[in-house]
């Protein structure tokens, strides 16, 4: 079983990212669970969302305390919340900066300027979908094809296409 935590702000699509990751896993005939941290914070406030992926039916309903991977949609959050909580093995951050500049204790730190990709590909600064591509590249937890299929199913038509492109772009960028 793999457990992933997303950090974002209300409105940035962390929950949607967690959901789409689950959808992608499902495309691969895996079981999944995706859920937000159930807060009442308003738009702009830090939020968390989670995904579990497993080859088997997932029975447990506890929250995720020890994520395998962490995805940070907005690097400004890193001063505000402990994004490394629970010792993830990999952390993927949306930022212009390099992993070194971030100076984290997590073993595998990967960075990507997903907002730029989003602006380029989708025309809006929603970094959540490209960050899924980045996660796929960094960890292989799902295949980028599954992500693209998932996003196209959720958003049929243009929007889905564009988001799929952003996922692909981010995937490739980090794979390099």
């Amino acid at each position, binding site marked *: 079983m793999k457990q992933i935590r997303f950090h974002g702000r209300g409105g940035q699509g962390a929950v949607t990212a967690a959901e789409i990751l689950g*959808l992608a896993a499902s495309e691969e005939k895996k079981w*999944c669970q995706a*859920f937000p941290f159930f807060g009442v914070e308003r738009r702009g406030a830090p939020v968390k969302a989670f995904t579990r992926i497993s080859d088997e039916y997932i029975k447990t*309903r506890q929250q995720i305390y020890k994520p395998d991977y962490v995805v940070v949609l907005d690097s400004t959050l890193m001063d505000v919340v402990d994004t490394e909580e629970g010792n993830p093995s990999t952390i993927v951050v949306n930022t212009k900066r390099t992993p070194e500049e971030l100076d984290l204790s997590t073993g595998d730190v990967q960075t990507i300027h997903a907002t730029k990709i989003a602006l380029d590909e989708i025309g809006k600064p929603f970094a959540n979908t490209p960050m899924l591509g980045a996660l796929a590249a960094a960890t292989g937890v799902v295949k980028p094809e599954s992500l693209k299929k998932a996003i196209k199913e959720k958003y049929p038509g243009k929007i889905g296409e564009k988001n799929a492109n952003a996922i692909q772009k981010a995937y490739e960028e980090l794979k390099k």
Partner: protein
Amino acid sequence: MEVKQGAQAIAHSVKKCKPDVCSMYPITPSTELPEEIAQLVADGELDATIIRVESEFSAISGCVGASAAGSRAYTATSSQGLALMTEVLFAASGMRLPIVINVVNRALSAPINIWNDQQDSISQRDNGWLQIYCESNQEAVDTTIQSFKIAEDEDVLLPIMCCTDGYILSHTYEPVELPDEEEVQEFLPEYDPDHAYLDPENPMTQGPFAYPKPYAALRKDLSDAVNGSKEIVKRVHDEFAEKFGRSYGNGLIEEYKNDKDTALVSMGSICGTIKSTLDNRNDAGLMRIRCYRPFPEEEIKKALEGKDQVIVLEKNVSMGHGSGALYNEIKSILPRSTTVHDIVVGLGGTDIAEEDINNMIDSLSNKENGVKRWLLEKGGKLQKNRGEK
């Protein structure tokens, strides 16, 4: 299989049951149900009338009106909303109106809190409504369909609460199989009641005033109907299993690795976490109560027969006992040779982790008398009631 949010999945399940009137009011965390149903109606996918009432009191009252008129009536609510309905809930069961409520369980004020526990529906346990608690979204989807069939069975004719844990289920996306609409229609007969309609050609009076004797007799009728519904809960569950290939224990309770000296007893989504925990140890089993009302006394007794130790985990408090409501219900039917512990857990959304369940099993023993404890935070120590030595 589709990955869907719990609440959405349930809404689609409701849609397949084709309710005539949905009289609904938003409240966290059941809000997505009225929202999704509104969207289905707005998109012409469901031909139901939505009454967007101004309060839950009117939500359930609208259901009463529709159900009394012989239509299939539905609502969804949580917490404060369910509490606000209290008076009408008693009336609806007394009038034998088979209304279905999806209760998305949430804690009660004060202080106000929007997260899950089961105080809301458990504190409605006297009122003659059937109550089924679901462990997963799939079960919620399936039980919603079963609920209509159980409620409307001519030997039941009782309202029912299909309970799912707020957020933990309602806001979690996971794969579910949504039954085919036509198959659901085959499974669920049309509702055509003989005791509740409002037909000018055939006038009847519903909800009369009763003197003591008929009142007491009608209460006994109600009680007998509630108790008798146990068989129908089971039967409908079995029929569903037959047709759709999914089952949940025997429909009333579900046993999991329940061949150990210690049994955990609980309801709802926490049972998933318990099962997962038990997968890694070999000294305890689980008896999950699925059907809480009627209370399947014989089934529970049998499942717990000969246990050394029973640990009840419950998400509610019956104030003045220092424990949950289920505790007395379980304890009163077990022999004294079985030690029964009660642990109040998960109040107001406090998470219960596998570590906590392990800790409980490890720290409690059948040597001592049964104890009452509280788990107030994930990873926390089990707390005693104040004053207990």
